[in-house]
């Protein structure tokens, strides 16, 4: 298990009910990690529609999860 920090944006923040949390995960990749969160908290978006950034850079979902990572979960936003 590793600890990672998660930040939620837009509709994900709304559905999760918070902006930021620290979690423990056994996921090997960041894609898997996001998928677990989507299922656990019924975030209502398929993983393929959520982009993940590590720190300040977007990253591929196959990137391995590492202890202390800061993951930003960014959904599309439609409002104008």
């Amino acid at each position, binding site marked *: 298990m590793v600890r990672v920090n998660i930040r939620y944006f*837009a*509709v994900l923040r709304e559905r999760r009910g918070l*902006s930021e949390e620290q979690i423990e995960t056994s996921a090997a990749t960041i894609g898997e990690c996001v998928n677990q969160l989507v299922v656990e908290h019924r975030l*209502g978006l398929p993983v393929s529609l959520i982009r993940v950034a590590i720190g300040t850079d*977007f990253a591929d979902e196959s990137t391995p999860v590492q202890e202390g990572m800061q993951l930003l979960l*960014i959904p*599309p936003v*439609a409002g*104008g």
Partner: protein
Amino acid sequence: MSFILSFEPLALEPREHAEAGGFVSFEGKVRNHAQGRSVILLEYEAYPEMATAQGNELVEEAMERFGLLDARVAHRLGTLNIGDTAVVVQAAAAHRREAFEACEWIMDQIKWRVPIWKRETYADGVSEWVHAGSAPAEPHSDQIRFERQMRLPQVGDVGQTNLQNARVLLVGVGGLAAGSLPPLVGAGIGAIGLVDADLVELSNLHRQTLFASSDAGRQKVERAAAFAKRLRPAIEVETHFEALSETNATRLVDSFDWVLDGTDSLDTKFLLNEVCRKLGKPLVTASVHQFEGQIMTILPDGPCLQCLFPEVPPDHCVGTCATSGVLGVVPGILGAMQANEVIKGILGLPTLDRQLALVDLLTLDVTRLERIFNPKCPICSGSERSSALEWDLQHLPTFDFDLIDIREIDEQPNLKRPHQRIPMTSCYEQTFVRPTVFVCATGRRSFRLAANLRAAGNRHVFSLLDGLCNPALK
């Protein structure tokens, strides 16, 4: 003839219309003062052929714009006394509001567009020719209007001229446009295009502050155009009362230099992204959700919206202003940021390209994210992306090349490899015959320089990805 010029006192009889619920007749009178001077006599003169042609044109435009049943104008020429009627405007419509508004609109347009001059004779015997209305701004009045921003070294005469030559298209005239339109018009953008198929609704007004309560039920594009004209009469405004679609997108976007996405539909945002990429137009896209927003400037050679989200998501799964709610000030701020991006882009100042900014207005945190280019993007995976990436080098090339550090002379640390230092601004004045790789601190300035030099026809210039952080320089 709906526009009549007459040397005789005006007498315009109303025409009967069974469907008309409102008939408004307005008379403009000669009054006894102008700009604090006492007027005793007035004389109107026109270039009749042109005045009649332009007058008829604007009456027809009013018929269409306000859905009138009838509209007529009679304008006096010759000498008039105090109290005489100088102009009569009549409008008949199904409802009174259109009739009232059409009369006012026609009067404003006559003053701006129709070549009629008046000579005022004052009590002191002096007389002066003046244009009948507030004529489009003359150069010296623009000088006053834009004085405060032209004082900025980044604007000056050249920047102001560039702004006034620029044509900017706003797709979606809602909450984001309420933030972007006023500063764009204020800055002196030469022409604005407005695209929206919606009518103003009461539930829009908490965030769409271009509109007045009395605008409910009217076309958003038409009311926004009226707003722009009031702020700067000399601006050119083009309205399109239609939704952006695959069939009209190219036609609507083509004549503009910059495009602002102010829509609230993901389908439209992705369509706009695709069309702007195809036509090589820079696009500033933004969207809002509750207390936060996303904004990104998409340049023809940078990453695009579909790099960010390769799959076009359906609207319903991400929440909208209608379902999730939005604080009115949020789109206003994001819209103003869009205008800021366009203005900076036109002035050649750094923009948010190659980054996505997430703006949280509850905490005032701005998070900027990079590395948006995505091999899964169906739009950029074609030739344009590869050509962009070909000059954004991951490694130093194996062929013989010159390495140029384009940072300012005092920026540290120095490169460890043999190189020349030529600050970026000076690079624009040089010709690079040999293959040349530019380096800066992060790879951002060098990318822009290489892109601009390539756009100017220079084929052998490259940028080093990540600049000084690139492992090849360690």
